């Protein structure tokens, strides 16, 4: 179990669990809630192991210094890391509590069981409460990595639990988001943004500054970082607009508007061979020659533009700065990395920076949350002791969040005379998929904050260090799970690209799976094979085969009427070739104007032992709907003067008028390692839609989004 970094960092039961003076269990986790309901799953795990009601498990707030340091809430790792740690901590606690009770009742621990806050001896019905046994007392023991956990046949909660009480709070407007926080003496703040990331401040308008000063508004200027703060939120918004409209900026040469897809395969780059899913710091081997057995060789290139997280609630944070102390409330997905980066920037002891997690609007990735937190700190430092609630505007969010990188995947493959793949090559190209803030100058580091670059003496972000880890950023799912006898895979981290990028749900797996699974259909076409059959013929993994078969059966694979612009498509991936297996089957219609109407979607997934089926289904479906939106609509646009997709009209996303009927089949595997499900459907959904479009109208669209422009362009290219 040493493989769990969460237990390495926080090895003691007291890091995770406590019995309070009333005998209730308090649970700590370093993984934060971002709409994925991880707290619910973790509560179920603890309540199951300790035979409590979930309602009697108190979830402690996530705050640095108190919560276990579990790094980022990312990569669908929370169940495998926090869930595994809490399960073992609770199992260790259970054995400890039973031993204490055995001593107290002068009996053998094997005669005892936990029962809703009591320890009970079955044959005598004698009991002792957790309160009397351990209330308010630390456990004082390490988590036993080999502690015996409950077996599936005795589960009361795992795999059965229903929606928690927080659902009604959300529906009644009682849930407090960071945007809703209020404190005595609090000032609202907004940021005055440059026209684009390369522009620098020349001057602010004196007359406007004078008027704002007379109205007790504070303007904070640090190099080209400009913010305004005041007591009334709307007055602050108007002040921001006045400052924006009158400021003078040196816009330099503007943004680089060379076609990004051209840049991706022609700019300088760092290239690495990828072996068994891991990038290796060695020279890239020479391209493969098609083998003797090759009867046909195909190649194709797939493209994803810059896309954005697009949270419905713009990023926000509350900060208070005092003498050598900073306290921040943020919806960042990494409270410890954020704390350490802020401490590093101001040369403070990390213990003097306290970062609380607070709920934000969902998006699944590194959006503006960390930037807003740092900007709130910058404003708060200018008015010590006063709480500052800084919010981004819609325009800030659309134009300044770190985007999902534009990406290209180039594939080629050879089929033998029997239509089997005998050789596969893949090369993917993009900017870095993670530039989350971290202390130190490199790995994005503190320069990953927009404001760090803009401040006086600002730090320019250096070239991103490549992630070489197994299925890291841009080579995530570059290596197909299929049983191909020979393969050559290359990761290309491309330099000098125009826009700031970071992590968005599923990272490189979106474009890689879009490419692999589109290409599998193209190869099936060349082999004259049915796409489902073709996949199964190249897959030995039974769990992989099972989800493909279940999704195909659920949709009624190729049994429905597919004339008149209707079609069906399927796609599959196992996330990181190690986590949840997911197949997505789609039925859709393409109209005469090349608009795609989604009709039905069937998801089949295997996430091992499912803790919270309702939550897992919500994650799989939500991921699929977000991916359908990327597939059909989304593209960041920009010109010399800056980002031009700055609201929901210029950056449309999927709306309620194009939501398919969705059915999700979970293949539960009790007793088999539980896996995160939040990113499993992202790539397969995009590819399934592309494949269904091809089935519907015979047009192979290889550039996202699949809007009318790109479908028409693909139709013309097919004719050439």
């Amino acid at each position, binding site marked *: 179990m040493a493989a769990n970094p969460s237990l390495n960092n926080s090895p003691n039961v007291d890091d995770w669990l406590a019995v309070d003076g009333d005998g209730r269990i308090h649970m700590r986790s370093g993984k934060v809630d971002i709409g994925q309901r991880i707290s619910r799953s973790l509560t179920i795990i603890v309540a199951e192991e300790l035979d409590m009601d979930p309602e009697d498990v108190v979830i402690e707030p996530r705050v640095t210094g108190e919560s276990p340091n579990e790094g980022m809430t990312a990569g669908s790792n929370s169940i495998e890391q926090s869930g595994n740690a809490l399960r073992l901590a609770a199992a260790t606690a259970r054995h400890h509590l039973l031993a204490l009770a055995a001593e107290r009742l002068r009996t053998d621990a094997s005669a005892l069981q936990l029962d809703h806050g009591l320890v009970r001896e079955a044959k005598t019905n004698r009991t002792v409460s957790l309160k009397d046994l351990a209330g308010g007392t630390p456990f004082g023991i390490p988590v036993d990595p080999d502690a015996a956990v409950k077996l599936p046949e005795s589960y009361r909660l795992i795999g059965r639990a229903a929606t928690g009480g927080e659902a009604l709070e959300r*529906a009644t*407007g*009682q*849930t407090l988001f960071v945007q809703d926080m209020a404190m005595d003496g609090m000032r609202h703040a907004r940021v005055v943004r440059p026209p684009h990331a390369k522009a620098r401040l020349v001057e602010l308008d004196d007359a406007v500054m004078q008027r704002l000063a007379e109205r007790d508004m504070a303007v904070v200027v640090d190099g080209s970082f400009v913010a305004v703060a005041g007591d009334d939120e709307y007055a602050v918004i108007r002040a921001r607009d006045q400052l924006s409209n009158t400021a003078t900026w040196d816009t330099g040469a503007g943004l680089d508007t060379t076609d990004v897809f051209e840049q991706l395969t022609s700019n300088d780059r760092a290239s690495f061979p990828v072996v068994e899913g891991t990038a290796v710091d060695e020279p890239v081997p020479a391209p493969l020659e098609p083998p003797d057995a090759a009867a046909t060789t195909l190649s194709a290139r797939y493209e994803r533009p810059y896309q954005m997280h697009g*949270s*419905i*609630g713009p990023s926000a944070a509350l900060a208070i700065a005092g003498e050598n102390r900073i306290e921040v409330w943020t919806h960042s997905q990494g409270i410890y990395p954020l704390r350490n980066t802020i401490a590093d920037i101001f040369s403070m002891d990390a213990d003097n920076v306290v970062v609380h997690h607070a709920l934000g609007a*969902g998006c699944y990735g590194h959006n503006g949350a960390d930037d807003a937190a740092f900007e709130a700190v910058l404003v708060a430092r200018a008015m010590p002791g006063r709480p500052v609630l800084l*919010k981004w505007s819609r325009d800030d969010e659309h134009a300044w969040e770190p985007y999902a990188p534009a990406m290209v995947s180039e594939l080629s493959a050879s089929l033998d005379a029997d239509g089997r793949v005998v050789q596969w090559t893949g090369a993917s190209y993009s900017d870095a998929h993670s530039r989350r803030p971290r202390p130190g100058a490199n790995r994005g580091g503190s320069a990953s904050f927009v404001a760090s670059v803009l401040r006086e003496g600002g730090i320019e972000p250096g070239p991103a260090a490549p992630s070489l880890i197994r299925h890291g950023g841009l080579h995530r799912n570059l290596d197909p799970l299929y049983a191909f006898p020979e393969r050559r895979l290359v990761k290309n981290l491309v330099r000098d690209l125009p826009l700031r990028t970071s992590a968005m749900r599923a990272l490189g797996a979106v474009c890689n799976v879009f490419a692999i699974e589109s290409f599998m259909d193209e190869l099936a076409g060349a082999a004259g094979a049915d796409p489902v059959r073709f996949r199964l013929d190249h897959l030995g993994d039974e769990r992989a085969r099972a989800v493909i078969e279940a999704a195909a059966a659920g949709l009624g694979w190729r049994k429905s009427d597919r004339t008149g612009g209707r079609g069906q498509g399927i796609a599959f991936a196992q996330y990181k070739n190690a986590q949840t297996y997911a197949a997505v089957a789609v039925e859709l219609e393409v109209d005469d104007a090349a608009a795609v109407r989604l009709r039905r979607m069937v998801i089949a997934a295997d996430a091992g032992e499912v803790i919270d089926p309702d939550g897992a289904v919500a994650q799989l479906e*939500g991921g699929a709907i977000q991916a359908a939106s990327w597939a059909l609509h989304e593209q960041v646009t920009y010109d010399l003067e800056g980002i031009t997709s700055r609201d929901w009209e210029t950056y449309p996303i999927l709306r309620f008028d194009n939501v398919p009927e969705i059915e999700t089949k979970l293949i539960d595997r009790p007793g088999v390692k539980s896996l995160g499900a939040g990113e499993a459907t992202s790539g397969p959904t995009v590819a399934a839609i592309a494949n269904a479009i091809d089935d519907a109208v015979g047009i192979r669209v290889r550039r996202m989004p699949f809007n009318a422009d790109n479908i028409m362009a693909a139709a013309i290219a097919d004719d050439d």
Partner: protein
Amino acid sequence: METLSLNVNGRDHQVTVDPSTPLLFVLRNHLGLTGVKLGCGLEQCGACAVLVDGVSTLCCSTPVAEYAGREIVTVEGLAADGGSVVQRAFADLGAAQCGYCTPGLVVAVTALLQRSPKPDKAEVVEALTPHLCRCGSHARVLGAVDRLIGGA
């Protein structure tokens, strides 16, 4: 600054504000009704929907002065007795992930069902299409509406 009379959730309130302030900021910051969400300030996303004289209305950019004398109901105002039938249907079907868009959707569905207790699919889609959700809870929201109209 002006003093205006606003009827919110069945009660009259006197607020002294710059009359050009959009209603949303008055509800949130003067009356503490933070269930009303700011999403865009452009009436493009639906997070700020409230009932105005029974009609679902986006209130993030229209000045508060235009709402004087009208009956305004927020998501909090629908929540008497532990939640309205619409709110309970959303909760029962897990029709929210982060929940930021949920108040606006609850308001839209409430207004729809008051106007048309048995809406057809096209009416439901028309009522919900002004609302964005980024977590992808759409299918569950539609499921909640189906349950409310007895279709499922």
